[in-house]
């Protein structure tokens, strides 16, 4: 896990007890975790007129808060364990107490942070339901008589907007449907095999 130089500088400044008292440190950490939480009304920044921050110039506070937030994100991204976290913080000159504090806060928020990161990305939409209709084709404009079944299949997709349900519908012949079903079965078997490994 690596951080950019600016963040490392901010962390080192945060570790300095002369610049940040323990209460100020706690406040900055709390603000950093709050800014990454998913509940919408808590994106508050530490009020600069807090008595805790009286002696600290605001640009330092902002620098340290940005550094702390970046560090938290990188830690969650790499699923850091306790040993690695303490080595990294020791390199940034954190003393034991602050490392403990950080670890407890981190454990509290780890789940929600993991959910936050997991929810960023893109996947193809999920199929949640299928409805089909079997029709029988008698003739087309190109052939006088074609007696064969044709399937109209509709996949219902999950979408983030629950009011607007999207779906995919298509028409296929029996061989194509057999092909599709065969492929689905292969996929399911492959998944079973992976889970048995």
């Amino acid at each position, binding site marked *: 896990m690596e951080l950019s130089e600016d963040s490392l500088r901010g962390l080192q400044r945060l570790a300095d007890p002369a610049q940040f008292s323990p209460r100020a440190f706690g406040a900055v950490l709390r603000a950093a975790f*709050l800014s990454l939480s998913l509940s919408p009304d808590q994106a508050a*920044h530490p009020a600069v007129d807090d008595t805790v921050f009286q002696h600290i110039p605001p*640009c*330092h506070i902002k620098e340290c*808060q940005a550094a702390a937030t970046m560090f938290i994100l990188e830690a969650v991204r790499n699923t850091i364990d306790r040993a690695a976290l303490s080595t990294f913080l020791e390199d940034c000159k954190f003393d034991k107490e602050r490392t403990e504090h950080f670890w407890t806060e981190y454990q509290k928020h780890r789940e929600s942070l993991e959910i936050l990161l997991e929810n960023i990305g893109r996947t193809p939409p999920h199929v*949640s339901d299928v409805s089909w209709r079997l029709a029988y084709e008698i003739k087309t404009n190109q052939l006088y008589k074609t007696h064969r079944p044709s399937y109209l299949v509709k996949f219902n997709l999950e979408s983030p907007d*629950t009011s607007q349900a999207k779906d995919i519908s298509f028409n296929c012949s029996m061989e194509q449907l057999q092909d599709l079903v065969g492929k689905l079965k292969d996929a399911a078997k492959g998944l079973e095999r992976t889970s048995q490994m």
Partner: protein
Amino acid sequence: MEEVDRILIHTLRTCGTEIPEEVQSVRHFNTELIVEAVVRCLRVINPSVGANLSHILPPGMSARFRIGTSLAQACQDLGYTGEVGYQTFLYSSEPDIRALLIFLAEKLPRHSQEDADQPAGKSAVLQREIATKIKQQLCLPWLPPSCRTAAAKRSQSLCLLHRFHAQPLSLAGDSSSKSIPPDRKEYWERYLPSVSTQLPHAYSLAASLLERNTSDLSAVQEWEAEWKSQGLASRLSPEEYRSRKRQRLQKRIQDQLHKFSQQFTENHIPGSSTQDLVDMLKAFTVEGGVDQNKGSRFTHAQKFTHQQDPQVLTEQMQRAAESLPKKDTQDAEAEQQELSSLQQQIEDMERDIQGLSETTKQLRLTIAQVEEETGKLQQHCDEKEKVVKVKKRAVELLPDAENNLAKLQAMVDGSTQRMTNLEGQWESHRARLMDEYREMKRLQQEKEDESSRWMKDVRDLYDKIRAAADEARRKEELYKQLVSEYESLPKDVSRAAYTQRILEIVSNIKKQKEDITKILSDTKDLQKEINNLTGKVDRTFVVTDELVFKDAKKDEPVRKVYKYLAALHENCSHLIQTIEDTGTILREIRDLEEQIETEAAKKTLSNLQKILEDYKAIKQENALLLGRMRQT
């Protein structure tokens, strides 16, 4: 042998055989113990076979015989190549039993170690994690989106994801660094919003922060790579290298922009875009002085081309006309009239402007021409003036002609002398300066060579550092992996004792091999010596024989000597023969003694007795059965 036995007993105990404590070696195994051990091993190796056999020896002789044969059959099915039959179990001999038990112990499946033997390599660990995760997710039943719990959401709501949209953040930099202008510091202090308030959503904040971190890190890495490859080779300090690079890039951008703007003017593309381009160029070149002239020349050139202006005006008018709101028809008519009158005015003014500009052009041309002429005339004038001056001087000096001539001649001589003087001085100076120049050049070349050598050293050092860092990382990963592997290994068997014993045995064997080779070489030497000596003896005897025989024909005592010599030779050879025989007999004795030992270990006598007894017992049983059969 004790080691082997101890290991064997331990293995047999682990598969369930109850071996009493006082039994320390295979020699002390009695028949029941042997049978129990073998049956339990078979049960572990091959449960289907072993289940049919009981491990307790039945008292009846025929049953025992049957069990013996079935056990022998099972061992042969497993692949035991030695000779095995019911006699190995019932009338056992130590070496056979040991070999059989070793074979069975080897065949025991190492089930307890199967899991720990799984490779704990990274990819295997990852695959196992994937498998467990998938299994976990497959166990959750599918729930419709509104009913999903938090855990279900993590695996099933994966389609409702947010895009990774990174936006630029403005972060406070190093406020203690000196290269930051004070306005920026003040902005950081007062007005810069904190990171959490710059973006509305936690998702975009997370994405932007991650992006920012990675881009900073990769910028540093790229700079390092570039510095190591090109920067060091250019022998500049980092700041100089960076400034030079910036200048190079700026120049390239300017050239490209100029090229394209020239293309635009040639193709008469409407002027608004060219004007923007020109403004951009002007803004871009505001730092370079020379380029400003270029820029200004460009603007002058623009002002000279008239085709652009009416087009600009008409376009602007069109745009204005489109943006104006629609009015009523009356106003529209009045407007139209106004428009046409204004248009007329504009056209008149245009014509005037055109005429005036033409006249200005002409006037400028005439001005240029006239200036040229004046320049030429001025030059002419100067030349004439110079000639006049010379002539005047000559006229002044003319009355006092001879004196002046002499003075002039003296002046000329003096000046030629001064010239030669100066030339001499110049030569000496020049020679000195040339030497200095050559010296300096040589020093500079040396310094360059030295610096290129240092450069190479620095690059080698960088490579070594990188290699060492990679090695250290790899070793750390390996260490972590091995530690986790070691923790997962079973701790019941003390491997250290075994490995130590194995190493001791290996060193013992090595010593013994050395001893054996020494003995062999001694034997070889001895044999060579013996051969040598026998040969010598024979040759000496032949020589003395001949010598003495020659003299024996004449003298009587010599004949006696000859007889004694022959007798001596015969006796000695006899002696040697006896010694050899003694050696062979000793060897045979030793062999026989060994055979006696092995035979004694086979307990053949006691086995034979047992066999006789069992044979008698079987005979009795047979008689009993026959009797019973006859009765019924």
